């Protein structure tokens, strides 16, 4: 009798396929999105909502505050948001101008901010975004004093969760005429941005850079420092020492427009322990009321937002989730007033993906017009309809967040605290520093772990 074929746990089909591909092309795989493997996450936590010892707030009668103030410690004009959910930095170049504009309009409609990316600020996104955070990246592509002065906050990017220690990447097929002009690069040539800033390395020099940016903006707007989550306690303390008004910590689930798969899957720590470590670091320094914490990396739902806030974040940033709200990984385009939505499943298949599994932002062939510079593809995204979707999504996240916070008896979402949470797995309990459900056991507590 023939034996049942026996797959290898060490070499499952996907690994075998990857080795075949590497052996065919001779270089690493590049792709978009964030980590695809399972890591301990906010899903492994649950809230201890009110019952008899505590009382919930009424959903429709009792107000709950979601106002979020970023950079109140030092800046003349702190960033005041109506909701604690912001849109993360994504570049024009990686995203189409239409996608950037749609994100800006949606964020403005709900009173929150968007963020530029590598390659500078477009007039459309400045116009569409009532509150715009201007990134200062290692490449400095398109970074100008004029744009700096019209920013509502400045974000010095040390790294990002998808590739801490790595630089930006924009493959040649996305370096169209306008993108090339903004970055003063030749058209159609792969762009690999620097991994380090040209004028500073380490916190001693970063301090000078931050002083410089503060001077250039006349002390008006807050200066953020964004980092990928690796040695979080030390990095957060050093960012504060260098003068950050807001620290942004991006966990390993954080997405990207393009980078090496090996980076995406094998660097950094999950957002779950990162938020706890960052919040503890700010508390250790006794600056947690003056320096705000934004966390990002795999935030998808109002529950994720609520759990991040409970563990000590002041706000969260969303990137991939905002793209999904725009229509990423949908089988159809948005359609517009003249034409109905069009099924583009075949275009996903041509990329080697399906609607629901696509991570092909790096190709510039986005079937729904989000991560492309091709005018025909970009036309598939109707700015009005796409921005309405993101607005709906942001409002839904906020309603989910306030539902949970009210049930925990909070009249302000920022009053959520770690004691409102328990963990469903030993791993999550240790990483989040909250007890395993039904016990008072916090694995590793008191062990002096960073």
């Amino acid at each position, binding site marked *: 009798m023939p034996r049942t074929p026996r797959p290898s746990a060490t070499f499952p089909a996907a690994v075998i396929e990857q080795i075949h591909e590497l052996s065919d092309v001779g270089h690493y795989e590049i792709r978009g999105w964030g980590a695809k493997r399972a890591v301990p996450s906010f899903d492994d936590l649950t809230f201890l909502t*009110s019952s*008899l010892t505590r*009382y919930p707030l009424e959903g429709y009668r*009792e107000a709950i505050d979601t106002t979020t103030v970023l950079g109140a410690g030092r800046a003349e004009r702190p960033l005041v948001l109506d909701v604690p959910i912001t849109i993360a930095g994504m570049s024009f170049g990686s995203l189409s101008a239409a996608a950037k504009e749609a994100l800006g309009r949606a964020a403005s409609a709900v009173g929150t901010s968007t963020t530029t990316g590598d390659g500078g600020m477009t007039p459309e996104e400045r116009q569409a975004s009532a509150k715009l955070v201007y990134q200062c990246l290692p490449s400095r592509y398109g970074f100008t004093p004029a744009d700096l002065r019209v920013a509502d906050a400045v974000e010095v990017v040390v790294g990002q969760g998808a590739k801490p220690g790595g630089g930006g990447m924009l493959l040649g097929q996305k370096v169209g005429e306008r993108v090339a002009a903004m970055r003063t690069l030749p058209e159609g040539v792969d762009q690999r941005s620097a991994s380090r800033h040209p004028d500073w390395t380490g916190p001693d020099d970063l301090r000078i850079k931050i002083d410089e940016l503060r001077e250039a903006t006349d002390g008006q707007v807050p200066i953020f420092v964004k980092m990928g989550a690796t040695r979080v306690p030390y990095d957060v303390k050093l960012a504060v020492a260098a003068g950050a008004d807001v620290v942004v910590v991006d966990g390993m689930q954080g997405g990207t427009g393009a980078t090496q798969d090996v980076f995406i899957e094998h660097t950094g720590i999950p957002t779950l322990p990162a938020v706890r470590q960052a919040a503890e670091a700010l*508390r250790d320094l006794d600056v947690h009321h003056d320096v705000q914490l934004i966390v990002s990396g795999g935030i998808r739902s109002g529950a994720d937002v609520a759990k991040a806030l409970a563990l000590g974040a002041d706000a969260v940033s969303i990137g991939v989730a905002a793209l999904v709200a725009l229509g990423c990984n949908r089988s159809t385009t948005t359609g517009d007033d003249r034409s109905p939505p069009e099924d583009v499943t075949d275009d996903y298949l041509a990329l080697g993906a399906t609607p629901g599994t696509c991570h092909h932002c790096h190709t510039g062939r986005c079937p729904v017009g989000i991560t492309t510079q091709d005018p025909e593809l970009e036309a598939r995204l109707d700015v009005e309809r796409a921005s309405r979707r993101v607005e709906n999504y942001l409002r839904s996240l906020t309603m989910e967040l306030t539902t949970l916070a009210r049930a*925990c008896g909070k009249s302000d979402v920022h*009053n959520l*605290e770690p*004691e409102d949470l328990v963990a469903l797995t030993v791993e999550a309990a240790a990483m989040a520093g909250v007890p395993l459900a039904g016990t008072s056991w916090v694995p590793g507590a008191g062990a002096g772990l960073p």
Partner: protein
Amino acid sequence: MCGIAGLLITDPDQRPQLGALLAPIFEAMTPRGPDSAGLALYGDGVEVHKQVGPATKLTADMALADRGGTCGIAHTRMATESAVTTEGCHPFMAGDDVGLVHNGSFSNYATVRRDLAATGVSFDSDNDSEVCCRLLAEQLAAGAGLAEALGSVPDRMDGFYTLLVATPSEMAILRDPAGCKPAVVAEGSGWVAVASEYHALSELPGIDEAHVFEPAPLEVHTWRA
């Protein structure tokens, strides 16, 4: 889950009756809090009495009905998230002579407690009300008056509460923004009485002529002895 009771005497001639008038109000709060009872009694200085067990035991043990004074605030406790111990009993004292009793529960006390602990404040219990009391003490130490200090509590403490506070010269009350936890005040001739439920006040002499009302949410009321 608790009961609160308070009596401030504004007519010096009635001061010898403080204990006799307060004891029945206090005891009437027993069903709301049978676990433990406590009292701060103001006259020549302040005395704090706390013990595990019902209010009737405490009032008998200290012969409250025979005691005079200017003001007393009392509490009957049904423990929620912290242990039934003498340390967990109210009133909590902010500084030497500011007493606080609380009915309700704070939903962010762990955070405020962490903040206070980081500044060197130490705690006698794991009770949420003690956190509020320490916060109040901090405000008073910084120079705030009683009304101002009490009025600033909602800026930091979230949740549901009726707070009754006394000093050697004043008594004050504050209810949460939703007015969720109860309180009834009666301003009589020569006295002001407070309880969680009206029936506790119904036997006071002259109650029919008193001005009886429920304090509005977030309104600080203060009375002087």
